[in-house]
């Protein structure tokens, strides 16, 4: 009986920590959710839904979009830009990329810090 209780306790504690990328989620809430919405649904044609757009970009493309922002004028949108976040810390960016892709990309592979730093430095 005691053992069973112990096992249950471990399972419960484990389930609390289910989202590995909760740090990335916090950065998402802080930097992205005002426009892309907390659930990533965006705003009609004005702001892309991340569910639809994340799978269409490679990790490198995502990193550079976050770094440089997007000039939305070129897309025929009334919202002027997605702002650039070029002062984001590499650790934050890695957590954010992992959160975005674990949430909205079915073919998710975890990115590591070194890889993200390299891509970030090589954005045009």
């Amino acid at each position: 009986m005691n053992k069973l209780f112990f096992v249950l306790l471990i399972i419960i504690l484990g389930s609390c920590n289910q989202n590995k990328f909760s740090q990335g989620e916090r950065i998402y809430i802080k930097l992205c959710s005002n426009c892309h919405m907390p659930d990533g649904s965006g705003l009609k044609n004005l702001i892309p839904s991340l569910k639809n757009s994340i799978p269409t970009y490679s990790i490198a493309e995502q990193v550079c979009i976050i770094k440089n922002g997007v000039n939305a004028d070129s897309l025929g949108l009334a919202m002027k830009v997605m702002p650039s976040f070029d002062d984001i810390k590499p650790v934050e960016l890695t957590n954010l990329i992992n959160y975005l892709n674990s949430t909205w990309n079915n073919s998710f592979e975890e990115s590591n810090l070194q890889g993200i730093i390299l891509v970030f430095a090589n954005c045009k």
Partner: protein
Amino acid sequence: MYKYFILIIFLSFLSCSEDKNPLPYLGNEVEIEGKIVKHTIKDFSFLDQDSSIINNTSLSKNIYIADFFFTSCPSICPKVTKEMLKIYDEFKDIKSVKLVSFTLDPKRDTPERLKLYSTNLDITNDTWLFLTGDKEQTYDLANQFFVVAMEDKEAPGGIAHSGTIVLVDKEGHVRSFADGTDPSSTPRLISDVKKLLKEYE
């Protein structure tokens, strides 16, 4: 069991009586030429996204739901617009209801840009008006809607403002409002719109 029964009866009375309460008139009454007058939105005149003139007279056939925004707003505007969209979806086919979004950045937000913005939002009829006009008039008007708006270099996009969504009746009185940045406050505003519509039946 009996206790629960009493409780339920009591609760249902509460919920019924709440529904019968008319919407309040918000804002201070003022004395004009010896008469006590309710807070009323002053006369205004703006251009909508189709460059038509919209003023108090053209809106007086409608109750309307107003907010203040600007198209390049990087902070709270998209969230508020999302809530306005929910309200639009609820009332888009009801002729006596309008949604009115005033831009706080009239210099950049021309009727053409507002047209593009509304097209991007899939707004296809004239239920939702996006208005641009004189800047001073807009900021003064915002205060009458109890919306805080001011130019502030420190604020994102250069304009600090609150995301309040305001319900105005056909006579220009403010009757209800919601916090556009808090999605949980929108259903109450929608039910207040329905309540206000009943006043005119």
